Structure formats: structure tokens, C-alpha cells
């Protein structure tokens, strides 16, 4: 069954989640198993309900937001962990209470399982007519839930899970699971937001301390400042935000203070205790390290998605003597088939790439194959979205034709008779202005 193959990353994540939870709540195995499977089923059912209740991107937005909230929580916990482990005052004991409480075990397991179930359900296309696929998902999840306690017993005893390490791994596994679904992916939009955030921040910072404009500054110095305005800054900034929580948790464990052994009057025994504490600390580092690896896998999957895009070769078009480009609705290509149709128009030295697409509302749109903020790398079409190749931002088909952000820049057009009519001058100028603006912005002008 092809669908089972597609579900492998999600099922693997689910198994990982169960193993980590079982090890993280060693005295609450029943709670974890029962809440786990119920939560997963609830998540699948919830996703189905969402798909029925809302059209378009809303269900994805809701699930993606819950992932985002989880990631933010991880950030909060990681910072708190660092503060606790470096403080000289009394260490927080909530970690122990957390690991043994049945309420915390139930809550963490339940929430994680619901999200995991919902994410997995998103992989199955269409809410209707896929009952078999849903059945396969649910049955595999149940089987894995039964298997997990047995597998967990095989794991070495040294595989220790701290509460913060557990949270890091759970979030990492959920993000790994979601990163293979374009519309749930967090990493690429994060990079985009980070790029904008850093640009704004650097600009505001320079304004606030009255740094002079580039005309007064040495070009070599400006080059370094220019890096902050470059395109890579979004990717690297995204990487930093993506990995920092797990790194912070690892550092917190690494810098945890060793127990005081000053009361022991025998050197060997002191060293034995310290060595044991160091060894135990080292074992606890394993989980954040694993989380880092999973985060890396998620980022990789997001940056190089294994989705095939619909990306037709642009067809050359020409203008009539009066400067109009006319594309028949039903000629060689069917403009109203809901797919992206790319064209290229050349006028002397200048050229412009654009596409025609019928959105899910049944309206035709004509847009540049470029957006107002990125380099004009163009768009491809995947399920329910078009994707900007440059920044990997997904634009729901519903919003194609509307300006703003990384949406394709709309081009005015008219539907006349059986064709779409575009003014070639407007098209060329619009392309020129967009490309000029984005290329200049990327070259680091303040």
C-alpha cells in the first residue's frame, strides 16, 4: 500500500514519541500507553473534523499553529533550564515531581499524541474516500503503541531522559513528522520571518544609535553590515532559532553543578561519586543530542522537500501590434484546469515571466512569476499551494492573485471572449520594477 509507505516518517515519529515518553515517565507506563493511543486517535479524528468544517488552508493553519506553540514552549523551557542549572541557589525540584506525576504524564502524552495524530492525518490527501488509508494509519499506530513498551525495555538503562530533554525530543519528532508535509512545515516560513525580523532589527538599531548611511562608511565595513541584509541571514538565523533550544538544554545539562562531596573524608569515594555524577550527566546529554539530530533531519526535509512540483516550462507568447497579449482559455493548454501555466514574454532586451492560474474559487488570476520581496526564482505548484522557490514559502492557492508578502505579484488583465488579455507594457514594467526592487534590496542597500 503506497499510503503506508508515505506514512513511514509519521509512524516512526510516533514510535519515537512513545519510547521517549515511556522512558521519561518510567513509573507511568500505563498512563502513557493509554493516553497515548487515545490522544492519537483523537488527533486523527480532530483533523478529519477540521477538514470537514473548514475549507482550504484553515485546518493546516490550526495544526501548524499548535506545532509553533509547542516550539515556543520548548524555547521557554530551554531558557528556564539554563537559568536553573547555572544558578547558585536551590535547584528546582519540579523535574523529579514532573517525571513521577500521573497528571503531567497524562497531559504531556495526551497533547503530544493529539498533535502527532493530527499531523499524520494531514498526510492523507482528502478527507473523503480515503477511509482505508485512515484505517491503515490508525491500525499501525495502535500496533506501534502495543510494541513500544516492549521495545522500550530493550533500550539500555543508561538512556536517561530529563524533562527538558524529553520535551526537546518530542517537539523535534513532531516537527520531523510535520516537515514532510509542505503545508505544515515550520522551518521555511521561520527562515523567512527571521530574515525580515533581522533586517528590521538591524535597520532600527542603526537608526537608533544614529549610524551614518553607507555613503560615509568604508565599503569593506558596509559589506559586513550588508551581510545582515543579505538573503543568507534568514537561513542562518532560522538555523540558530531552530537548534538553539536543544543546544541550550544540552548546555544546561553539561554545566549542571556536580554534587558537593566535601563532607566525605575519603578521596577515592569522593572521586567515585563525582565520576558517577559526571557519567550520569553525560548519559542525560544523549537525549538533547538526539533531539538536535532530529531537528537537523526536519530542517533538511523542509529545505529539500521530497515533493514533486508542477512546474511547466514557460511558453513563449507574443503581443499583438496594439501591445496586447492574448492567451486562449482553451487552446493547447486548458487555463481553467486549476494548474499553474507559465509564459514568457520578450520585447527586445526585456522579458517578463508570468503565469495564469485558476484559483479554487474559480477565478482566473494572472501573476508575475516573482514576488515583491524575493529574488525572482519563480513558483512551483504543490497540493493546495504554490511555493516560492527562493524562500520556500507556501502560498495557499486561495490567496494567489492577492498582493503582499511573498505572494506572486498580480498583473491586471481582462477576460475577453474565450481568452485572457494582458497589456504587454504593463507586464514588462511591472516585472522590471519588481525585479529591480528585489535585486537591489538583496544587494544590501540600507
Amino acid at each position, binding site marked *: 500500500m503506497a499510503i503506508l509507505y508515505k506514512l513511514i516518517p509519521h509512524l516512526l515519529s510516533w514510535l519515537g514519541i512513545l519510547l521517549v515518553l515511556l522512558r521519561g515517565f518510567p513509573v507511568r507506563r500505563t498512563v502513557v500507553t493509554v493516553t497515548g493511543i487515545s490522544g492519537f486517535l483523537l488527533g486523527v479524528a480532530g483533523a478529519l473534523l477540521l477538514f470537514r468544517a473548514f475549507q482550504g488552508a484553515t485546518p493546516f493553519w490550526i495544526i501548524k499553529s499548535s506545532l509553533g506553540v509547542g516550539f*515556543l514552549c520548548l*524555547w*521557554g523551557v530551554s*531558557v*528556564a533550564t539554563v*537559568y536553573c542549572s547555572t*544558578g*547558585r*541557589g536551590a535547584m528546582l525540584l519540579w523535574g523529579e515531581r514532573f517525571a513521577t506525576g500521573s497528571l503531567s504524564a497524562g497531559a504531556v502524552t495526551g497533547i503530544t499524541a493529539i498533535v502527532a495524530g493530527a499531523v499524520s492525518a494531514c498526510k492523507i490527501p482528502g478527507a473523503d474516500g480515503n477511509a482505508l488509508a485512515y484505517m491503515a494509519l490508525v491500525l499501525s499506530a495502535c500496533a506501534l503503541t502495543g510494541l513500544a513498551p516492549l521495545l522500550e525495555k530493550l533500550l539500555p538503562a543508561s538512556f536517561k531522559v530529563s524533562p527538558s530533554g524529553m520535551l526537546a525530543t518530542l517537539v523535534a519528532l513532531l516537527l520531523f513528522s510535520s516537515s514532510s508535509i509542505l503545508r505544515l512545515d515550520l522551518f521555511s516560513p521561520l527562515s523567512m*520571518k527571521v530574515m*525580515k*525580523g533581522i533586517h*528590521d*532589527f538591524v535597520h*532600527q538599531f542603526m537608526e*537608533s*544609535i*544614529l*549610524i*551614518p*548611511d553607507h*555613503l*560615509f*562608511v*568604508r*565599503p569593506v*565595513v558596509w559589506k559586513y553590515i550588508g551581510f545582515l541584509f543579505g538573503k543568507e541571514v534568514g537561513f542562518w538565523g532560522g538555523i540558530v532559532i531552530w537548534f538553539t533550544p536543544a543546544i541550550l538544554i544540552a548546555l544546561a545539562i553539561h554545566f549542571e*553543578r*556536580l554534587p*558537593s*562531596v*566535601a*563532607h566525605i*573524608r*575519603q*578521596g577515592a569515594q*569522593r572521586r567515585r561519586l*563525582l565520576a558517577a555524577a559526571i557519567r550520569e550527566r553525560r548519559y542525560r546529554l544523549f537525549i538533547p543530542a538526539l533531539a538536535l539530530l532530529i531537528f537537523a533531519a526536519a530542517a533538511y526535509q523542509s529545505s529539500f522537500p521530497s515533493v514533486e512540483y508542477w512546474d511547466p516550462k514557460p511558453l513563449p507568447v507574443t503581443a499583438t501590434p496594439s501591445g496586447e497579449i492574448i492567451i486562449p482559455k482553451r487552446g493547447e493548454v486548458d487555463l481553467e484546469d486549476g494548474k499553474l501555466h507559465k509564459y514568457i514574454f520578450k520585447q527586445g532586451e526585456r522579458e517578463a515571466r508570468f503565469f495564469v492560474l485558476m484559483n479554487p474559487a474559480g477565478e482566473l488570476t494572472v501573476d508575475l512569476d516573482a514576488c515583491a520581496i524575493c529574488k525572482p526564482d519563480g513558483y512551483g505548484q504543490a497540493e493546495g499551494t504554490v511555493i516560492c522557490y527562493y524562500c520556500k514559502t507556501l502560498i495557499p492557492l486561495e490567496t494567489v492573485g492577492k498582493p*503582499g*508578502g511573498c505572494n506572486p505579484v498580480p498583473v491586471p488583465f481582462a477576460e475577453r471572449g474565450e481568452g485572457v488579455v494582458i497589456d504587454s507594457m504593463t507586464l514588462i514594467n511591472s516585472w522590471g520594477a519588481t525585479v529591480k526592487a528585489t535585486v537591489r534590496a538583496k544587494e544590501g542597500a540600507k
Partner: protein
Amino acid sequence: MKRLIRTILAAASSRGVPPIVVGLFFLIYIGIAFFTDETLIALMALTGKSVILAVLLALIPLNSALRLLMETGRFLKKRKMFKEKATEAIPEQFDEMVELPASPHFAGLERRFAAVGYKTRRTENALAAWRGFTVFPARILFLAGTFCLFTGILISVTTRASHRQMVIEGEPMPTPEGIGGTVKRIALAKSNGLILARALTIEVAPSYSGEMDRIFGIYPPSLYRGSFVYPRYLGLDLLLQFSAPDLPGGYLKHIILNCYPPGKEDSKTISGSPYRIVFTIPEPEPSSDRYISYMARDKTLQFKLLKGEELLFSGSAPVGGEFARDGYRMAFPEARRLVVTDYIGDYGVFFIWATALFFFVAAVIWLPLRTFFPRKEMLFRYDDSGIMKAFSGSEGGRRAHAGIFHEALDLLGAGKIDTTDA
């Protein structure tokens, strides 16, 4: 009541305050991002307007100030402790604290410590040993820097006022509150600075008796009548004389051209006529600086004359010269240098500069001390009940120091210390 105040103080000076406040602002930032692309600007504006957010932000400098006081107090207490004043030792200031029954025979111990490079101070019933230097000054500078940074941000977002003005050679210096002294000269020259490539100077004559000549540079910007003078772009103030066959009355007016650097176009529409003139500064010789050359030498301007969308002709004329063709006449009797300048009323800038200084000095102190001369200290105190209290701590948690401490305790505990004075 006292308890309440103490609780509030403890909360306000907690190490957790800065991350919590920053975290909250980050959440607000994320919230705003759903509604606008200009998230940061919107957040700054919101903080400037909302008292709640301003107070929230103010918690950080308050926290740094309280911590600064608290940590200084603790440090002084600890110093006193090491100077053998009868101060109660605070176990939290040390890594390890232990009590053991032992007698105060410190002479041998003192020699052992000296042998491994520790300085010691001994009294009848106490021994202090230490080596290296504390990074406390760096910590204080760091806290002071944090205080300044967030105070600066708070002042900036709540009080910053910005006015854009044209500073023109020969004209009085405009300010948000009126006019100042006459601008004597605007000059742009090459600079050999590490960061700046060109130096701009604006010389302003006194505006009232007793005032001195003022010279404004690029960085750091100077204050003039309470505002920072923040030069942004260069431009020209051109006296344009223009007449055309259908505009016999002509046009004579100062116009402001934002046409720097050479090659950049700026256009001016002649009001009440279909004419528009596009100006550019011609590119200088390749060897010369495209900004400086034109600021320094006699000026020539290129122009294009358009009537509606139709290009009538293009040409160039030097300042002081004129151009005439087919009944059109264009003359540039005068051109003066101009700097588009922002007047920034914002004293938060001082705090942010101070932050940079504090953080820099803190880093310069912290790095070598923590790397090469970390502070390690021990304190042994004997009380009348026959119990020895021993404290030890090392900045950076060096284990070698803990080893020396433990060995000393072993010796004290076993009573195997050479008790004779050296």
C-alpha cells in the same frame, strides 16, 4: 507589610526577570506579526504608547539596578568575611560548605596553601585562602550595561522625536524649535578612519553672543539645541532660473535636489506649467571620489527638459552659467551644498553608547580573568563549640581547587596537620 516589600524586592531582583520580560515581548512580536509586516516598528510604537508595556520593559533596568546593588552588597560582605570581620558567611556564595569537628590548627595548612600558590590570612580561629582575581567588576559592568541598554531602549521608544530638515550652506541652521546660527560651510573629505570612509563637516556660526562656532561631524553625532544632528544624505540647493516661449515671465526659485551621488536623477516640475526638468550630476573622472569631487569643485549640472512626456532637449550648464535654445533659457545663478539632516531628540542614545562601552570593558576584563586567573577561595572558621565550618568556591568551578579544599579538610579531619608555626 515588610514581608510584602521583601517579597516584591526578591521578585523584582530575580534573575528570571529579564528572560521573562524579553519572552513576553517576543510573544507580543509574534502576535503583531499576524497583522502587519512592519512588526518591529509596530511593536516599538505600541510600547511607546502603552503604559503597561513601558512599565513591563522598565522591569529589566529596575532588575539590573537591584541586582547591581544586591550583588555589590554581597560582594562587600564576602570581602569583609575574608578580612576576618565577624560576618556570617552565606553558603550560597560558595560552591561547597561543610562542617566538621576539628581544632583550629592552621599553621600547617597555611604553608600547604602557600606552596600551591594561594594567599592566606590567618587569625586565631579562622583561615582564609585565595588566589586569582574575581570577575566581579566584569559582572558589575555587565549589569550596568544591561541597565543602560534597556533604559536607553525605554527612553528611545517612549520619547524619541525626529525632524527632517535641510541644512543649507549660507542659510541659518534649521532646528525643530526655530533657527540657529548660519551654516558657514559644508565639506566632505576623505577620512582615514577605521570605519568611516568620508568625513562630513558642517560649520555653524554662533547664533547669539557668547556661543562658539560649532562643527558637526558624522559620528558620533553632536547635540544642537537638545537634538542630535544626524546627517543622512547630501543634496543641492539650486537657484533655478527658467523661461520658455510660453512662459515668458520665467521662473526663479530655490529648489532642493536630492541628486547625490552623480548619476542619480531628481526632477522638478515648474509649477503652473507643463514643464519638468530632470537633473543629474555628471559622473566625475574615474580616478576621483564620486561623492567628494562634486562637493569640492565647481559644479556642472546635466538636465533634461520635458514638456509633458515629451523630451524637448537635454544639455548641461555650469553653476553661474546658462543654457539657451529655441527660446528656452535655463540658468543656475547659484548652487549651494545641502545636507538632509534628521534632528533626533532622544537621550536614550547616550545610554546605548554607554552600554557598548560597558559591555566591551566587561568582556575585556572577564575573558582573561576567567581563562587565566580565575578566583578560587576557601574559608575555614572555627567556633567555640568545636565545630569547624569550611567554605570553598571557585569561579568557573575548577575541580583542581575543589581537590585542594578536600585535601585540607581530610588533613583537618584526621588531625594530621603540622601545628607548629613556621
